[in-house]
Structures are given as C-alpha cells and as structure tokens.
C-alpha cells in the first residue's frame, strides 16, 4: 500500500544549523503518527516541511507516491495537507463561524451566505463531537481547548487527507488536553492521516499508532505505540541510552 504522505531522504538546513538530516517517514490514512523529540530536535522544521512553510534542501515529499513541491502553505493545502500551528491564528473578535470560514467565506452575490456557513459549521462540529456553547460567540469567550478545536475544525474545511498538528496540547489543562486528544482520535476515524508533533510522551502514547523520535535533526527510530515503554522513548529522545536498549534514562 502506498502511504498517503512520504518523506524520502529529506534534509533541511538553516545556515550552518542542520535542522533535519536524511529523514524518511511515512504516514497512512486512518493513522496517527506522532513525532517526538527534545527542543531543537527538528520537530517544528518537520511540521514546516509538511505544511509548505519550508522547502527541503534535499530529498522528496511524495503524496500517494507522486513527488510534490510544497512551496507555500496554500500549495500544501491544494495537495490536501492542512496544518494547525501552535499559534492558532484565530481572530478573537470574530465568532466561531466567522473564524472557521475566514478567508474562504461562502457568498451569494456580494452578500455572505451566513445560513450555509452556519449550517456547515454545525455539521463539522457535530462530526467532531466538539462542544461549543454557540457558534455565534466571539472566540475570545471560549476556553483554550475549544479554541484549539475551532482551529483544528477550520483545518478540516477543505477536507484535507493529511493533517499536521504542531504541539496541539501545549498550555492546555488536563480536561482540555483530553478533549483535544479525543479529537485527534476522531480525525483518525474520519480517515485522515494525522501527524502529531508533540513533546508530551503521555499524550502521544495515548493516541498515536506509531511514534517517530527525532534527536538533533536525525530520525532515531520509529516505535510501535502499543509495545513501547516510556523509558524507551525517553532514552531515544535524550540519547542517554542506546535506542531500544531499555533501561532508565538518568
């Protein structure tokens, strides 16, 4: 089976700093691939490469086996890749519907088609089983988890095949984190290929199918989420112990 999205031998440098070196990764539909690593491991660069913010120096990005050039976020979206960054890019003063469709408003003639937008918003939020008090309140009034839900829901509007989530649980409380992780599972059920960038090992073990570990730009290994222990992952992330050797990272 051909993967939904493939990175083949991808490298990226910023000046003298090698952010990613010769990385190979595959993500399938109906799958959550988590990417973990310490600060500076290259996680955000990887997210940038997938979402068209950065272009690789070497190597290829393939979608369904076809090489693609993701030169901008817009180009990535056209190829069916949507990204939700740490910075949610929501306008606090606009309500949920306005934010969901910002930049892609439905209009009949010169006037906005509020009815169809509001209907689509409800359908989408229902599918995600997202709890939002109203789609007509400014997002400033929503909780952090709800805001993140709205940002993720907006990424889904173009019906992308691949969704890249960059640190989706950062700065969230326990309940809100659970809310977002449930949402990630629902994305998998909907048939998306999900790339979950995170530094929280508990989070990725909760929802991921496979876990890729990055350290200093190198892909250290891929682990099966079911069978891998936290210690294995910590060891791989920090490099304190040889990967897959088990034992404690001190």
């Amino acid at each position: 089976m051909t993967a939904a999205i493939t990175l083949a031998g991808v490298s990226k440098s910023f000046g003298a700093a090698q952010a990613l070196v010769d990385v190979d990764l595959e993500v399938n539909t109906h799958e959550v691939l988590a990417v973990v690593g310490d600060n500076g491991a290259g996680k955000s660069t990887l997210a940038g490469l997938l979402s068209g913010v950065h272009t690789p120096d070497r190597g290829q990005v393939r979608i369904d086996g076809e090489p693609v050039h993701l030169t901008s976020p817009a180009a990535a979206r056209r190829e069916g890749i949507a990204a939700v960054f740490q910075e949610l890019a929501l306008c606090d003063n606009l309500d949920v519907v306005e934010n969901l469709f910002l930049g892609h408003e439905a209009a009949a003639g010169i006037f906005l088609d509020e009815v169809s937008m509001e209907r689509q918003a409800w359908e989408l939020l229902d599918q995600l089983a997202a709890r939002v008090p109203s789609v007509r309140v400014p997002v400033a009034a929503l909780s952090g988890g709800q805001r993140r839900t709205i940002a993720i829901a907006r990424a889904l509007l173009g019906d992308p095949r691949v969704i890249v989530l960059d640190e989706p649980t950062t700065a969230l409380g326990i309940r809100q984190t659970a809310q977002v992780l449930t949402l990630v599972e629902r994305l998998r059920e909907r048939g998306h290929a999900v790339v979950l960038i995170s530094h929280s090992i508990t989070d990725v073990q909760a929802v991921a199918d496979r876990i890729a570990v990055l350290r200093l730009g190198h892909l250290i290994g891929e682990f099966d989420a079911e069978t891998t222990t936290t210690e294995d992952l910590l060891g791989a992330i920090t490099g304190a112990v040889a990967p897959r050797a088990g034992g404690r990272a001190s």
Partner: protein
Amino acid sequence: MTTARTAPRTDGGRISSAWQTWTDGDHRLAPIAGALVVIWVAFGIANPTFWTPENLVNLSLQSVSTGVIALGIVIVLLAGQIDLSVGSVSGLAAAIVAVGAVAGDWPVALGVVVALVAGALIGLLYGVLVARFGLPGFVITLAGLLVVAGVQWRVLGADGSVNLPFDSWLVKFNQAWFVPDGVAWVGAAVVVAGVATIGIVERRRRVLAELPAPTVLGVLIRPAVLAVLLAVVVGYLGQARGIGYSVVLFVVLVAVTDVLLRRTRWGRHVRAVGGDHRASLLAGVPVRRTLVSAFVACSTLAALGGVLAAGRLAAANQGTGGGGLFLTAIAAAVIGGTSLFGGRGSAWSALLGVLVIQSIANGLTLLDLDAATRNIVTGLVLAFAVSIDTLLRQRQQRSVTRV
C-alpha cells in the same frame, strides 16, 4: 440533521443576535442610545427651546458633515488603524469645491467629483504606505494632517476664504432642501416594510436549513421599533422644516456601510484585520488590499464631509476642517461604541456618537455656555466612553493572553 442536537444551540437567530447587539454585544449601541436620551431630557428641562422641532432640525443638519467624517473613522478603526488627517482632508475638499466653482468657474458637480477623487487618492497613498511598507498609520496620517492642511491653504489662496454662491445646488442641498412630508412618510413605510421582509425571508431560510430561528413575532420586533422611531422623527421634525436631504444622505450612507461591514466579505475582512492582523494573514485574508480599501473609504468619506460642510456654510476657509474637527470625529466614533483597539464597532456608532456630541454642543450653546464649557463636557463624555471600551475589552480578554 438530528433534531436532538438542535437543543443546545442556544444562540438563536437574528432576534437574539440583534438583542445582543443592543445590550452586551460587540457594538453596545444600547448604552449610548440611553445616554442620548438622558442628554436630551436634561437639556430639554434646562431649556425647553432644545426640544423644539426647529432646534432639532438644526441639530440634525449640524450633525451631517462631522457624522460622515466619523463614519470613515469607524471604518479605519475597525481595520485597526487610525486616520488623524480627516479634518484636513475635509478642509481641502471644501476648498477644492469652493475655489473650483468661484475661481475656476467649474460646475459644482465637477468640483465635488474632483474633491472626492482627491480624498480617495490621499487614502490610497496612506493605505499603500501602511499596508505595503509597514509604516505606522498614526504617524503617516499625522504627517498627512499637516501636509494636506498646507495644501488646503494654498488652494484657498491669499484671501483664505471663498464663498459659494447661495443659489448653488450644493448649498441648497445642505440648507434649504427638505424631504416633502408625504415623501418622508412613504419613504419611512418602505424602509420599515423592507426591513420586515428581509427579516421574514432570513427567518425562512434559517428554518429551511434547520438552524435555530426566531419566532415570527420576534422577527417583527425590529421593524416595529424602527417604525415607531421613524414615525416620531418624521412627525416631529415635520412640524418644522422636516428632514433635510443631507440628513437622508448621511443616514443612507450609515445604513449602506453597516450592510457592507456585516454582510460582505470586505466587511468581514476589515473586522478580521482589525481584530488580529497576523491571524488574518495566515487565514488567507487579503490584508493589504483590505487596509488600503479602509484608508480609501475613510479619506473619501472625509472629503465628502468637507464638501457637505462647504455647502452648509456656503463657504470654504482656512478654518474649514481645522481645529479639533478630526478629534471630534474620532470622539464621535468612539463615543458611539467603536473600539479604538480595532475589530469591534458598528457603522451606527457614527450616527449615535455624532448626535451625542452635537447635542451637547447645541444644548450648551442654548444655555449660553461658552466653548470652554462645551469642550470640558465633551471631553468628559469621551473619557467616560473610552473607559467603558477599555473595561469591556479587558473583560473580554480575561481568557486570552494576547494583549
């Protein structure tokens, strides 16, 4: 769609959002409408002349020019910008019309067109400097204030004052032409019927789409309130000269701007850019184009305000648009409930705000109080309005870290 899930959709349709608009919503029109009533009652008690139809007709005519300028300010404020040069731009526009008609022997209409184009070009320049080169609008328009005021004086020439002929249509439009009583009543009826029809049609669309919709009765509250309001205005002002054409123009401009801001992509983008510049950019909003359009709209409306001022005074001089006019226009927009911090406000705040400011000026003049007192009172009202704006903003920001 499941009906079971419809229950928690508490936001309702137009009725509750219309209600929110008037109470604690974005635009907060209710407090300022209430304040206006208080001001009118107080001045009416202090000097019954204030309440006479003739005085209120004057009040409405006095409000037009500043109100049109304030409307432009509302647009730039919504886009998260400011234009300090609106007074100078209006003065230049007045000078162009007057000098064109008198010295250049132009038809007045040509002068008006040239003035509006000049305004649009000034706004275009601001917009390009701010949107493309990232210069701060505050400083650019402050520079514009000085430059344009200088140009205005040059255009006026050595005398510094040019009178428009009293028989020109521009003067009559602003001083002498009033909507005939019958036409006013028919017009009011048409507006009310139109608003009611739109409400019913929208309710039907929401019902068909299985979205929460207000009751038919709820939909009809808005046109009913509007009908009472229009009947009072038309009936009462009709006892004196009536409703001036320039007043109709102002109200129509406000209504059209309101629809553009709330119901079109452009309006949504203006509010988005004013709310969060970077988020709008990331969402794919054409930020630059939106900013440029906001500056163009503001300067063009400022020029129109100047043209109307020239008509009302039947003259243009070095003082036209000068002094604190730009501050008055900004104060009107803010008093009316448009936020200085961008993204929140309504076109109607230009109408309400300018009515508050002109009522204070008019009422204090009737009480024989001088300009100093007028300034002090207007300043206090402005401080009060800005305090409310800031407090509400802080309350809304409590769950948000961005400042």
